[in-house]
């Protein structure tokens, strides 16, 4: 069953077309990768899905209902969580608080409950804390609950971002280059974590990734974007051999004159 579907999605920034008629269908419980050279529009796609950008035309459907243009917090409440390409944690707060904040939609008590510290408040807070600790343990941050986010090592920060996203209890998780800047060992661990996300929690994953080893390793489906357009889609092996993909990564570059003057190579394709 298709969980997320975009149809004819187009987004322009002034003259620049960041997404052009993108059709994407993410199957439930799939690990779906989006790849493409720098500036291809991958992050823009995420921003459209999560409600931070409003697509100019086209539609986005999640579990059958349209979410294009919906406010970001409402999108999040529907069950779409994300991480960021350049880590964006609540930097001065503890790891636990980072996760607790994302549990926000799932904590229910009134302001009065909070002021009077009613049993309802206590129960909700305790349950939230339990869940947050459990999530931190799940991503491997047990025992680091009270460290400030900035004080965590890089790899841990990435995992904390995932724990925070999980706190939304998402059906769909968008990961924007989760292994960027990681060493091979950390990357291995991240791959395992992503697999567990689907295996143990049944979360569908939409993944932007530059590291081709990762992409080939875990994806069920790969979509390739180039200059905002979808140029290929299919199982990783197939996409890898697609001439258009090879061209996009190795071919034109500056010569095309359509996009950024230089198009650095991603990953080790």
């Amino acid at each position: 069953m298709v969980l997320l579907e975009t149809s004819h999605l187009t987004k322009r920034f002034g003259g620049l077309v960041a997404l052009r008629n993108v059709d994407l269908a993410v199957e439930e419980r799939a690990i779906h990768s989006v790849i493409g050279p720098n500036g291809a529009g991958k992050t823009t796609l995420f921003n459209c899905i999560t409600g931070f950008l409003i697509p100019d035309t086209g539609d986005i459907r999640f579990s059958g209902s349209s979410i294009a243009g919906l406010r970001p917090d409402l999108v999040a409440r529907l069950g779409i969580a994300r991480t960021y390409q350049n880590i964006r944690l609540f930097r001065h707060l503890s790891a636990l608080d980072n996760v607790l904040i994302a549990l926000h939609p799932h904590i229910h008590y009134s302001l009065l409950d909070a002021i009077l510290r009613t049993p309802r408040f206590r129960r909700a807070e305790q349950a939230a804390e339990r869940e947050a600790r459990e999530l931190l343990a799940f991503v491997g941050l047990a025992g680091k609950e009270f460290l400030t986010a900035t004080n965590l090592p890089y790899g841990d920060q990435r995992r904390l971002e995932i724990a925070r996203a999980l706190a939304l209890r998402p059906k769909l998780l968008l990961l924007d280059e989760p292994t960027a800047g990681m060493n091979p060992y950390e990357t291995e661990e991240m791959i395992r974590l992503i697999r567990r996300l689907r295996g143990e929690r049944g979360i569908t994953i939409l993944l932007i990734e530059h590291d081709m080893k990762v992409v080939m390793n875990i994806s069920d489906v790969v979509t390739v974007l180039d200059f905002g357009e979808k140029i290929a889609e299919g199982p990783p092996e197939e996409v890898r051999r697609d001439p258009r993909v090879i061209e996009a990564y190795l071919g034109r570059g500056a010569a095309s004159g359509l996009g950024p003057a230089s198009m650095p190579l991603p990953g080790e394709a």
Partner: protein
Amino acid sequence: MTIAAPQRLTGGRRIDISQLIVWGIGGLLLTIVFLGSILTLRAGHYSAAQWRDFIVFGIAQGAIYALIALGYTMVYGVLRMINFAHGEVFMSGAMTTFFLADYLNRSGFLKSHPWVSLIAMLLFSGLVSMTVAVLVERIAYRPLRGAPRLVPLITAVGASFFLQYTFRGLFGSGVRAYPAIPVLQGKLWVFQKTQIAVFVGVLITLVLLVLFLQRTRAGLAIRAVAEDREAAALMGVDVDRAIVTTFAVGGFMAGIAGVLYALVFIQVQFFMGFLPGIKAFTAAVLGGIGNLPGAAVGGLVLGVIESIGPSLFFDGYGIRAAHQLKDVIAFTILVLILIFRPTGLLGERLGGEERL
């Protein structure tokens, strides 16, 4: 593009109740102003000559705002921050130059060489303001570059009060009156001669500014940094130096504005920077902060509205002492423009956009 950019309304589904209320209030204000104007014009208390004088005064005042606004806009262009202390930079020149003017007056030089004196005063004031602006940048802003936005904003507020009360401490809290400059007394056609001096002064400064930005290496560096700081640094532009130059140039113009202001309003005081500062900022936003021609246009527009506004908008309602509401009009414009069109009338020009 900020996260809060108005462009986000286009989705149609983003308009929520909070926004409807805001738009409602905006509409109500516009209606009040519009109705008031009609009522005033129908009543016909003011003659055409009076309106003309309002406008002339407004333009003179607006020209001064424009000059100060350029400082805000240039600093915003290169640093993406509001130099909250810029009004005090303006004040420091005017206050300090009072003593030069007073000296020139008492020595008789002002009478014998009015033009030389005037130019000396302008230059002196410009230099003082320039020094103050550069010092503020060096002490209060530079060490905090790259800190969260709130931080330099707070130091800017601090610098503003620090300067105000430093000048109060140095020179006292009394009002000082600039000596009259003999050649600038009286009227020429519908203009006061001081008003003409203001127009000419502002015009010359603007031309010099444009020449500076277009024709010199330093000006080029400023424009490069405004466009993209990182790229400029990579291309070998000395970013620190470009920023200091920006503050220096902005400060110099504020100093000149200070003397021009004193020519028109005679009196100077330690607190005099606050209102013109805020209004010049309003002008800068009105014209699109970061946009140089915008600042000039914004200044003139604001000056004129402020000058004719109280009579035009409120007289028709029979409001007592409508002229007291002059500043209310200015502040209301400020708030409205920040709410409804933060990119200003002419849009953001100097400098790129902020990303999500």
